[in-house]
């Protein structure tokens, strides 16, 4: 990065001629930038430190083997919450992947610059940062209120709606990176567009698309707000058909952390450590893949 080195290298010779006011403004900017960057890093460090400090001591084999305790009972674990979270996330990703993949494919391969594609792309970008609690309200109206019962399916659907925009966006970005010559080569062999897409462009963009799915998983794994009124939460094993409340890690953490019981709070810390570790590992892996892809 020679462009960064230039001002620094030139500084000593010039330093004496810079007016004090200009020099002060410059130093203030530099000091400010360094300080706020340190704040960012410290905040992350503080959050991770807190989780490790409080979470590791609460983490034992019992956390994974016993179900969440009722109010006032001793010990207990998070087994049902962990399993429930895995199920809900799996449903969310299983629903979101085909929809997101196809929608992203439409934007990159069929719609491109058409008015419809432009508006769908725009709406998708907006949905990327939509408040997740509103998605919870939407799914409640759609899937909980009519049936009169909370369910894992509603929770999974809410998570899917959050995951879809992420998958659409990365799929479209990755597909538009595939060189047009590949598609032309496929078309020249007589393959119809659907074959070119499934056999050529999807394969060429596979790593990037998978990355998008991993990022979406990381995004929904820690989501709490949309599960509050869809999957709900409880302290026992959920039914096999997922009707009725499905216990899950985020809502369990929310309820336990704010509770007055010592063992509940301990479990909240253990759960917080587990979920953050999972989410951060997924995002780091995804980032690593993207970077390798970009280099290649």
């Amino acid at each position, binding site marked *: 990065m020679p*462009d*960064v080195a*230039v001002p620094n290298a030139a500084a000593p010779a*010039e330093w004496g001629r810079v007016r004090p006011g*200009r020099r002060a403004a*410059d130093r203030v*900017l*530099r000091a400010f*930038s360094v300080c*706020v*960057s340190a704040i960012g890093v410290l905040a*992350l460090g503080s*959050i991770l430190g*807190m*989780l490790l400090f*409080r979470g590791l001591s609460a983490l034992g084999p019992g956390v994974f083997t016993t179900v969440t305790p009722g109010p006032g009972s001793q010990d207990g674990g998070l087994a049902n919450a962990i399993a429930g979270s895995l199920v809900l996330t799996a449903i969310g990703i299983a629903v979101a992947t085909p929809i*997101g993949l196809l*929608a992203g*494919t*439409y934007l990159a*391969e*069929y*719609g491109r610059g058409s008015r419809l594609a432009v508006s*769908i792309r*725009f*709406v*998708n970008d*907006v*949905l990327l940062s*939509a*408040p*997740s*609690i*509103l998605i919870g*309200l*939407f799914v409640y*109206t*759609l899937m909980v209120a009519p049936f009169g019962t909370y369910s894992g399916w509603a929770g999974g659907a809410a998570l899917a709606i959050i995951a*879809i925009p992420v998958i*659409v966006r990365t799929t479209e970005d990755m597909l538009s990176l595939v060189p047009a010559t590949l598609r032309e080569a496929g078309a020249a062999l007589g393959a*119809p*567009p*659907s*074959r070119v*897409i499934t056999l050529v462009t999807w394969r060429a963009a596979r790593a990037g698309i998978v990355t998008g799915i991993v990022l979406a998983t990381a995004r929904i794994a*820690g989501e*709490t*707000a949309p599960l*509050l*009124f869809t999957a709900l939460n409880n302290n026992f094993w959920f039914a096999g058909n997922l009707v009725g409340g499905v216990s899950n890690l*985020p809502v369990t*953490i*929310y309820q336990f*952390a704010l509770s007055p019981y010592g063992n509940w709070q301990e479990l*909240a810390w253990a759960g*917080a450590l587990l*979920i953050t570790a999972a*989410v951060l590992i997924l*995002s*780091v892996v995804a980032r690593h893949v993207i970077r390798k892809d970009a280099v290649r």
Partner: protein
Amino acid sequence: MSAIATSEKVMAHHEAGRARISHGGFDRAFRAASLGCALLVLLVLVGILGATLWGGWPAFREFGILGFITGTRWNVGAEQFGAWPAIAGTLASAAIALVAGVPISLGISVFLTQLARGWMRRPIATAVELLAAVPSIIYGMWGLFVFAPLVAAFVQVPLNAVVEGLPLVGTLLYSRVPSGTGIFTAGIILALMIIPFIASVTRDMLDQIPPVLRESAFGIGCTTWEVVRHVLLPHAGVSIIGAVMLGLGRALGETMAVTFVIGNANRLSPSIFDPGSTIASRIANEFNEAAGLQLSALSALGCILFLVTFAVLILARLLIARVKRI
């Protein structure tokens, strides 16, 4: 020889013909499926608006749209619901988040693009990006158990001693119960949460500016501050506002972290250090136990949140998109 020719003939007759028919069908189905999935994205947006409007309609009808928005009482027992305390809490916490978060985000992006050496850039950029990946409930726990006690001890108590009895600031900054939870703490946590988003968009914008502009400014003897102030900022201009709006959209709708630290008071308090509530935290807190008109009022709150957030996000995307096209 003849065997090959025969099999080629067979293929030409059967395989190729059949394949073309099935290809054609699959092709149309595939196209229709991808169009359908893309339309589903539009449908979600319409669905959210429809669901909240439909659910909130009884409350809007009961109190009137304006009456609901400006109503200051939220009394479940008396079936009296006004949205203003929650709206004011949402706006106040988001404003605090912007005031604290925007300078920090800009500082980080200046540091990462202008000041950091090669080896520092990657780890710091990664750390800031990981802040975006941390689930919001973790921010809530951190805010409640780590940050709120610090606010109570190092901000509220000393500040109380200074401002007590003074006009205006005496009410605005005075905390009756210095517990650390309140609108101010929520705003700071929100600031931390929106920093990664603002910083990463701003950083992309600064990276897109042609290096020759900076180099020529440095060449005529500008300091880093002058390059940032007179070359980079004017150039990135509108898109930085877009990035800030994006952060604002996030801050307005954030739920779990705020619910942990805002104190969840139903009344509107004049001080930013007192407990309050936001639209999202009110919905998260009350929705499961609500019925009848309260349920409808919460949906109506959701509808207001939808309109405000989406207006902000749409504006943000328009501002960012406009610059990208240039």
